[in-house]
């Protein structure tokens, strides 16, 4: 059996289902846009103040938007028997989970990142820096998805477990948020993309890609009996 073709089939299906009817992959992007659009109403339209908090606020909105998509990541598969079948395919579960999360990331994060340049203008980020900021958010979003998958796997067996998933995942998001907001600030201050905080975000992303699927797979197995 071709492990590579099995993994790509898993990832591609995740994208297909996400973008298909009822897949809901665009909801986080809409949530992100909405969350950013209301920021000027909450903190006032003063450009200087918005510009000061804007980049950090985008990171916060990104973190909350990823949570929106997490609840269903594994729950649907557990409910309809797909998870049972996956275990019998011979594909190692951590790899299958990694492929699923990668597919989910493509289907959810891609539309979300397309919204970033517009959202950035709403919170007064300099137009010349929006694409660089979107790039940083892209790296951070992969880390957030991987980490969030652990919470999603833990809460997958619980009906309406979305809030629980958020409660589990949010504390784990903190390091990415700290370094993400700091890297956005460095980008705004003097235009450095590969600042030290952003290198930390990259490191967190790589570590989460390597470790989170193992943890998520172990958590998922708890629900299968």
């Amino acid at each position, binding site marked *: *059996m*071709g492990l590579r*073709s*099995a993994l790509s*089939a*898993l990832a591609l*299906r995740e994208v*297909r*289902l996400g973008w*298909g*009817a*009822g*897949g809901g992959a665009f909801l986080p992007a809409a949530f992100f846009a909405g969350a950013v659009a209301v920021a000027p109403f909450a903190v006032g339209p003063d450009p200087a103040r918005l510009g000061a908090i804007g980049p950090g606020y985008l990171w916060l909105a990104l973190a909350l938007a990823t949570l929106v998509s997490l609840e269903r990541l594994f729950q*649907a598969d557990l*409910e*309809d*028997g*797909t998870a*049972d*079948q*996956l*275990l*019998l*395919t*011979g*594909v190692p579960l951590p790899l299958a989970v990694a492929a699923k999360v990668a597919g989910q990331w493509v289907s959810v994060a891609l539309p979300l990142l397309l919204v970033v340049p517009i959202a950035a203008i709403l919170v007064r980020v300099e137009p010349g820096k929006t694409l660089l900021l979107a790039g940083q958010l892209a790296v951070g979003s992969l880390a957030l998805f991987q980490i969030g998958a652990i919470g999603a796997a833990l809460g997958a067996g619980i009906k309406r477990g979305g809030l629980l998933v958020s409660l589990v995942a949010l504390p784990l998001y903190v390091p990415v948020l700290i370094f993400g907001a700091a890297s956005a600030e460095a980008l705004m201050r003097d235009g450095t993309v590969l600042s030290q905080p952003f290198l930390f975000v990259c490191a967190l992303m790589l570590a989460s890609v390597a470790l989170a699927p193992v943890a998520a797979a172990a958590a998922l197995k708890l629900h*299968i*009996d």
Partner: protein
Amino acid sequence: MRHAARLQVDGLALARGQRLLARDLSFGLAPGEALELRGPNGTGKTTLLRALAGLHQPLAGRIRLDWPQRTDDDSNADRLMFLGHLDAIKPAEPARAQLSFWAALFGGDASRIPDVAGSLGIAGQLDLPGGVLSAGQRRRLALARLVLANRPLWLLDEPAAPLDTAGRAMLGALLDRHRAEGGMVIAAVHDTPPGAPMQRLEMDTWA
């Protein structure tokens, strides 16, 4: 392809929650043999099937599939298929795409999809999304996945339940052909399963 795997179960004990469902359960199956699990509701037929599939951890006992080239790295899961009450069908995805997805995952041959679907009478439904299929059509689609995967041991939980008369006949033909190719079948049933007669295992109540 001829299958050559055989199954040996020794001293199996099963429990659900605090309830002992079976103990000292031992049986074996050789290529081409089939077993029907009988017993009232709640006697552990599904739990036994899930344990055989490796999806449920038995209290005690040993389940071993053996085939000629088996190495220590191989697991039972590589040689069996499980079809339970949950049919793993996604409502939004066309049937054909679901079958080719599972063919890729189980290492099956996706070019056989039209033939297999034809033999199960769902060739006309291949382009419909899973959500509009009836219960019987869903079961036929799940059976098509089973055939495509081409594995020796089939674990079936009430396979004929939602099927009509024609569907039962197709299932019978499917089971007979699988056994003729050296495959094994274990099915939890309440009525005599379609196809050639099977050995019978009565699940006792321990409650």
